[in-house]
């Protein structure tokens, strides 16, 4: 570790390229906690959006219009409005309406900015996931569902055990795209002061005066994160592949 720090220190002294995060412990801590926050945001929003998406797709296929209509409205509204405005609407609009709670003598909002960011971003991505899952479910042949019915599966059980596993395999490429998009969208949390990578890096560059170097680091960070996610999704796709099927 010391060697890396020394190398970057020397790089700064010889070329003026100031990658302060790699030799300054304070900057490194901020960067690292930002990275952790980005990871927390990404993982929770991905999981939540997948769950909401799956539930939404189930409701969307239900025979009752009372269940279908809200899901469709949700999808249509969240797909056609800017995620940043959604975030502001949730955090400022709804956040100020919720009652505050008393903890340790201080009145704090019921949900803090990190939680609102998670809620808002998950809902945004879930709206896309609903559509993606739906297209996957539509690709499952009717006959398969009929066979499940004949075997006495209820609608819910058939959905969980038969339709969803097949649908997920079908829609993985599209899902992959959307999740990468979601990872990139987590930067929006910057706007409501969630200390994620962009926020941390901006703090560092405004103190250390190294905008260019931090920009490069920032782009590299997101490049690597997206790379890891894509790699994981490909692994998953490989693992879920139905032998002898698909191209």
């Amino acid at each position, binding site marked *: 570790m010391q060697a890396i720090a020394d190398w970057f220190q020397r790089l700064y002294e010889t070329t003026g390229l100031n990658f302060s995060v790699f030799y300054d412990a304070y900057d490194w801590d901020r960067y690292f906690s930002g990275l952790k926050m980005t990871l927390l945001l990404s993982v929770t929003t991905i999981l939540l959006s997948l769950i909401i998406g799956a539930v939404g797709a189930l409701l969307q296929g239900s025979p009752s219009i009372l269940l*279908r*209509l809200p899901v*469709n*409205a949700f999808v*249509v*509204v969240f*797909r*056609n*409005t*800017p*995620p*940043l*405005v*959604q975030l*502001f*609407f949730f955090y*400022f*609009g*709804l956040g*100020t*309406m919720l009652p505050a709670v008393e903890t340790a003598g201080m009145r704090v909002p019921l949900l803090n900015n990190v939680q609102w960011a998670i809620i808002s971003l998950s809902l945004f991505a879930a709206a*896309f996931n609903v*559509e*993606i899952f*739906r*297209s*996957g479910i539509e*690709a*499952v*042949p009717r006959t*398969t569902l009929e066979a499940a019915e004949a075997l006495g599966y209820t609608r819910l059980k058939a959905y969980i055990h038969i339709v969803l596993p*097949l649908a997920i395999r*079908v*829609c993985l*490429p*599209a899902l992959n795209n959307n999740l*990468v998009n979601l990872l*990139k*969208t*987590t*930067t*929006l949390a*910057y*706007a409501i002061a969630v200390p994620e990578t*962009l926020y941390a890096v*901006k703090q560092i560059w405004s103190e250390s005066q190294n*905008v*260019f170097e931090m*920009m490069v680091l*920032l*782009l590299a960070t*997101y*490049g690597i994160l*997206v*790379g890891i996610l894509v790699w994981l999704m490909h692994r998953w796709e490989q693992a879920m592949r*139905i032998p002898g*099927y*698909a*191209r």
Partner: protein
Amino acid sequence: MNDAERGHRLAVLLPYRLAPPRMTVRISPPSAAILCFCAIMAASTAWAQSGPAMLSPLQVILKWSPLLLWGFGFNILISLLSMVLGTIAGVGLGLALLSEFRPLAAASWLITQFFRNAPWLVLLFFVMFLVPFQVTLFKTTIPLPDWIKATVGFALPVMANVAEVVRGAVRSIPSTQWEAAESLSFTPRQTMWLIMLPQCIKRMLPPWMNVYALVTMSTVLASIVGVSEMLTLTAQVHAAEGGRPELFAPLYGFALLCFFLYCYPINLWTARLERRYRVR
């Protein structure tokens, strides 16, 4: 699907061709607008326990709507400009992706991947902070206001996305067409410009419009870097009205409504074109 079904009568799971995620028209645009409007109304009335001196949220919106809509127009302007810039650059990049000359194709692939995978906000910061606020060309100083820089910042991801769209469209044309063109002794350049691209325009239109809807929704990011577009103005209006917390939801709801009314028809139209131009 029917042909496939006949061919694979015994298949457990039919070979699929995943349609690109498309909007399904299940809510008509007017009723969607009514839905939105009602939601905002509900939000405004539920929290309008203000005294006679204070304006109700609806009145505030009405009072400031010219300014807010002007800001929205600015958003549209930015989106249109960056779309034009990005499309011109993107078509060039897309053609470079398809180039026979390997290093050029590899370099443009790298550029495309880079700009596609970087978050929009980060690219915006990149342009905002690293492009000077004025450039001196031949002793004339050209000022670069923030919104121009933001436009360029949005044009970069548009470029990469359009490049992918162009590449995908050209690739989707059967290879026999290339062979036919070759046998008619068209040069590669003529083949591209006279045969491939005219056919591609139809196929490129729906995804291109998708990209446009994406850009329009991203223009609000410019408020984070200090361009005074709709979202910035919304915050200012909120402050001007005394910063009452119950005004947040109606004001941001109004912004949501504006974007919805602009983007939803585009999406519906895209879906319609997609169905009409469905490739096989």
